[in-house]
């Protein structure tokens, strides 16, 4: 059935209000969008890495999750989920359970790109039937905006401050989606919460209902870390997509497919200038040009992979 936003509003909400994420945070928007792709009759177990999403949605004695949920530590959301999934396989095999469950692990870019990459790689390689969702807000926001390997070059963070000598982070961001492609998973996608949420919904649905391990990398703007006004959440994601900083694509059994091609590719400066974390360099033509070239290089590569060139 073709995607219809209004139809999806009929599904039960699986992440309730009453959690304590910041006003205007992108992460719960990503989480509830992914969960909306679950069939209402299916049950789920959700895991989360330590991070904003976890410490704000499950503060004793309140859980915002309507499904069973487990958090154990920072670097192991993937394998904690894999442990639950293994238990499910055993319970099914031994006739202890009739219901259908789906398994979704969440982690921020810190818990996914960095400290959690070993556990993620292991769980994906072993082929557990689960979805790992990275909500990438481009820094360790939970501990106070420290740089991660997902942080864009030149971003001002509390451990890559824009100083008098060193103007913010000195490295380009790691392309984790590409790293996950190298795991030869049945389904991998990069998406963002934009427009009528068709892209994120359809990818979440495919990820959840493709047998075997799947990985979603989802851009999740952070008003505090990126330094923009809270109402602009969706605008920020849209700009990242339209500048091709964050292309939307999927890789199904190794086959790349671009799922969104901006009609007018916007210059990276549009995205940089909208955020306080780039204020120190957004007018520096040389640096902006350098970033533009890197965005173009990666975009061209992707177009080639997707057979768009």
């Amino acid at each position, binding site marked *: 059935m073709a995607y219809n936003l209004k139809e999806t509003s009929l599904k039960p909400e699986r992440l309730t209000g009453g959690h304590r994420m910041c006003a205007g945070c992108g992460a719960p928007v990503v989480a509830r969008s992914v969960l909306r792709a679950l069939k209402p009759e299916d049950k789920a177990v959700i895991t989360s890495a330590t991070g904003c999403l976890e410490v704000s949605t499950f503060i004793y004695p309140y859980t915002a999750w309507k499904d069973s949920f487990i958090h154990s530590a920072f670097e192991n959301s993937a394998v904690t989920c894999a442990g639950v999934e293994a238990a499910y396989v055993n319970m099914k095999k031994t006739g202890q359970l009739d219901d259908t469950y789906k398994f979704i692990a969440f982690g921020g870019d810190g818990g996914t790109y960095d400290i959690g990459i070993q556990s993620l790689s292991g769980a994906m390689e072993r082929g557990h039937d689960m979805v790992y969702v990275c909500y990438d807000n481009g820094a360790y926001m939970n501990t106070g905006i420290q740089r991660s390997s997902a942080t864009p070059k030149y971003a001002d963070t509390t451990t890559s401050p824009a100083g008098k000598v060193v103007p913010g982070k000195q490295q380009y961001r790691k392309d984790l989606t590409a790293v996950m492609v190298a795991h030869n998973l049945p389904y991998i996608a990069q998406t963002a919460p934009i427009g009528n949420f068709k892209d994120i919904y359809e990818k979440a649905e495919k990820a959840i209902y493709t047998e075997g391990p799947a990985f979603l990398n989802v851009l999740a703007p952070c008003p505090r870390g990126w330094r923009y006004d*809270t109402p602009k959440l*969706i605008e920020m994601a849209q700009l990242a997509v339209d500048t091709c900083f964050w292309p939307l694509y999927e890789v199904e059994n190794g086959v790349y497919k671009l799922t969104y091609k901006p009609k007018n590719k916007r210059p990276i400066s549009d995205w940089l200038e909208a955020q306080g974390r780039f204020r120190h360099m957004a007018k520096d033509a040389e640096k902006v040009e350098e970033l533009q070239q890197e965005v173009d290089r990666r975009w061209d590569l992707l177009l080639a992979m997707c057979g768009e060139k």
Partner: protein
Amino acid sequence: MTDKDKCIVEPFTPWQETTKGGVVTSSGNAHYYETGGWRADKPEWDTEKCRQCLMCFPVCPDSSILTEDKKMIGIDYDHCKGCGVCANVCPFHAINMVKA
């Protein structure tokens, strides 16, 4: 004080009465925790201007756009933190942020 059905254990409950390992056995009970008090600006829904496109519904971080039968029916002020994302995406200016 403690509501066992909702697994709402009051702060400073004797250790004998807390749940072992901090397990919470009432899923989604954060619903009973109100975050409406966080709000500085308040979204107001203009039913005249609303064309029921539902673009506001998925963008809310606090699941506070109330819907029924594919239609918006209101805003959950118990949980809305007043971020203004809904107002910003509305193509018809049917949600306006006002001082709370």
